Structures are given as C-alpha cells and as structure tokens.
C-alpha cells in the first residue's frame, strides 16, 4: 500500500512538472504537448488507440511466448551438449553483434507487413537474454545436488529434468522478466519499419501529421502495457518458482 502511494506520488509530481514546463516555457503543442492535452487526446481517441494497442499487445505476447519457448529449448540444448556449446555459442554472440534494427527491413521483406515480422523482431530481441540467463543457471547447479544424484544412480536425463532444470528456473524467470520489457521494443521496431496497425505505426502516423499529442498518448499506452506485462510476468514467476 505504501509503495502504491509512493509510486502514485512520483507519477503526479512528474506530470505536474511536465505541465509546468510546457506552461511556463510556452512550448507549442507540436513540440511538446502538456499532459492535460495528451490525456484529453487519449480520451477522445480511445477507440483508435485501443484498436492499435490490441495489435501491439498480441505481437508482444506471441513474441514473448515463442521467444521464451525457443530460449528455454536452446539453453537446454547448450547445457546438455558440449558440441552444441562449441558450435553455437560463437554464433550466438555474433547474432547479438548485429543490431536488431538492421534486421527489421529484411524480416519485413521475408515475413510481410503483418503479425509475424513483428513477432520475429520481438523473439530476436528477447532470445539472447532468456537463453543466456537460463543457460547460466543450468550450468550452476549446486555440485552437492549433482553428487547426490550420482550416488542415487540417476541417469543424466533424469538429473536434468528433476534437478538441473527446476534448480535453474529462477534464472529462466530473470530472463523472462527482462524479456517482458524488451519484447515491446522489438514489436515497435517492427511496426516502424513496415506495418498498417499497432502503436508503433500509430506513433509514426501521428508524428508525420504533427499530432504530437496523439503520439504521446500512444507512447503512454505502450509504457503502461509494458509495465503491466512486466508485473504480470513477475507475479507469474514468483507464484510458479518463488523467485
């Protein structure tokens, strides 16, 4: 409760400062609209913003789900196979050296203007944090547990599924928490490069028409969506794995 009050207090102070800057500096609305105008626009355009927000939300959720599954599977493959480690890890790092931005036009070319190019962007951007957080955790199983499993004559497969994977789930959870914040970035980049729907598309459109108030309205909705997603993933991880 105290925390909620504190967050609300900070938000109100921020909005007041924002409005004060706009009013005192007499900034034109096409440079920086004040929060009163932005929230007014958000209210009058709520149907439009909601329609685009739903599209972005679906892209983000599908990207997060598929990217999470892919990261989970990759980390396990890397953890069980030294061959996969030696072959794939350099490639893995190389893919991170390529800016995701630069890949967006190619993905749009390959996958089209619809949902899947955005899902692919979101997956690309979350794949590395999920895989590396989970892989690191899989490689750090407390040695005492592994000794115990060996003395109990466990097979490597059962040791993996019954001990190493469950012990590494807090690592997977940290990867997913990061992913919840990164996935919307991927979706928005995808929408900027080529889309006909979504909050990123709406922001570009509003910017081009000097409707900066609408752009800010879309931005605020995006930020709120991201925060909600992070909170939901965080709550789910705590519930499932207690961390």
């Amino acid at each position, binding site marked *: 409760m105290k925390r909620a009050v504190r967050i609300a207090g900070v938000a109100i102070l921020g909005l007041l400062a924002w409005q004060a800057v706009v009013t005192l500096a007499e900034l034109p609305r096409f440079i920086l609209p004040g929060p009163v105008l932005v929230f007014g626009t958000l209210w009058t355009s709520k149907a439009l913003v909601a329609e685009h927000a739903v599209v972005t939300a679906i892209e983000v959720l599908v990207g997060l789900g598929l990217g999470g599954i892919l990261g989970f599977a990759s980390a396990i493959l890397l953890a069980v196979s030294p061959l996969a480690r030696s072959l794939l890890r350099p490639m893995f790092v190389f893919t991170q050296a390529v800016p995701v931005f630069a890949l967006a036009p190619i993905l749009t070319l390959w996958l089209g203007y619809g949902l899947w190019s955005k899902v692919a962007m979101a997956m690309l951007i979350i794949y590395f944090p999920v895989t590396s957080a989970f892989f690191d955790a899989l490689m750090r199983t407390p040695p005492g547990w592994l000794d115990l499993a060996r003395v109990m004559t466990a*097979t490597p497969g059962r040791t993996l599924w019954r001990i190493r994977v469950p012990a590494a789930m807090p690592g997977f959870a940290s990867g997913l928490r990061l992913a919840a914040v990164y996935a919307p970035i991927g979706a928005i980049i995808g929408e900027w490069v080529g889309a006909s729907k979504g909050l990123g598309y709406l922001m570009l459109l509003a910017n081009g028409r000097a409707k900066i108030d609408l752009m800010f309205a879309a931005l605020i909705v995006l930020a709120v969506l991201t925060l909600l997603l992070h909170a939901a993933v965080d709550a789910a991880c705590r519930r499932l794995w*207690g961390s």
Partner: protein
Amino acid sequence: MSAAPALHLSGRATIDGMPIFGPVSVEAPAGEWTCLLGPSGVGKSTVLRLLAGVGDELAFEGEVAAGDGSSLDNRVALMAQSDLLMPWLDVTANVTLGARLRGDAPPRDRARDVLERVGLAAHSAKRPHALSGGQRQRAALARTLMEDRPVVLLDEPFSALDARSRALMQDLAAELLAGRTVLHVTHDAAEAARLGHHVLLMTREGIASVTPPAGPTPRVYDAPETLAFQGRLLRLLMEAR
C-alpha cells in the same frame, strides 16, 4: 538391504598436482560405525568422495574396495553437511527423490513410515524452507534411509546444528543406521566420542586408529568415560602437526 560390506581405501589423492592426502589407509569394518575425525583441510571429505564414487576432480592412486570383493556401485548412500533438500519439492517428494531419479514409482507408504521414524510425519507436506535446521537434517536422514543402502557415508551432517539438536540427531542416526557400514567424517571430538565403534584420527601425518571405550553406542554424552575419550581425542588433535 543386502549385507553390509566392510570398506577399504588406501592410496594418495592429488588435485591438479597438489597433494590432498596420503598415502593413507582407511578401514571401516562391516556393519559398524567408524568415525573419521580430523581438522579441516586434511582430506577427510575427499576420502568420502572417493568411496562415494564422485571424486572426478581428483587424481587418486590406490585402491577403493568393499570387503566382500564386489563393487560399491549402487550400495552407497550419502548424507552431507548441507541437507541438499530440493526447495521446490515437499518433504515426501524430497525423501523419495532417489526412486524418481531412477525412474521408479515413489514408494509413498515406505516414505510415510520412514518420516514417522524420524519424527517428521506431521511435516510431510511442507517445503524445506518451512522446516527448522534440525527438521531439515531429519528429512535428509529420512532420504538417506529411503535409499536403503548397506553403506552410508556421512560428511559432517550434524555440524551446523545447535548442541541439543545435534545430540538428538546423533541418537536418531545411531538407532536408524544400526547394522549398516557407516563412515562418518567429523571434526568434532565429542561427536566421534559418542558415535564411533571405531575412531580413525586423520591428520597431516596420516591416519591412526584410536580405541574407544567399550560398550554400546551412542555413548551417554556426559558419562565420564565418554568425556575422557573426548578429551583424549582432542589432545591427539592438538598435539598433531
């Protein structure tokens, strides 16, 4: 449980060329409780790891064998200083871990029985974090008993407990592990004086056997002969290099 074999280890161990111990010789008679007493860092736990078959990081020159000539594989249970309970499993699932790791159906009835014997029947559905330190070691003991192996290796399993819980655990372990070949690594002279049918003193100079007082174990903790033996063990520890 099959008949408990004697344990024998002799040789020397190194890790990356650094000597850990040896040459030494450890004998643990069949069906009896042997304490391996010594200060930290003399390689007591390494002896245990070699007997448990998990000392991959070690270079060992020598011999590890069971008195009956068969392999020790599948005949050893291990209980460590840390309880090694899985925090995501409840107590019943923790004590039946071995069965599940081998792909067998968890023997729930037997688990209930064993938890009854270690006094955890009322806690079987709890997760480890909801247990006290003493209860967690009881759960670890229950898991060790569930394995029903003739050889039990104990690596300072009671050293993190308070004095009262430790004495209670010593009594319980002595009762429940009777008849098995137990090799118990400890740095506590009082513990060795209470529990050992045989006490091996391990120092940098090697391993020497010290004869404990006659009579049943666990010895009464404040009996004069127990205290005298404890004092003697401590003196030997202090006088060793």
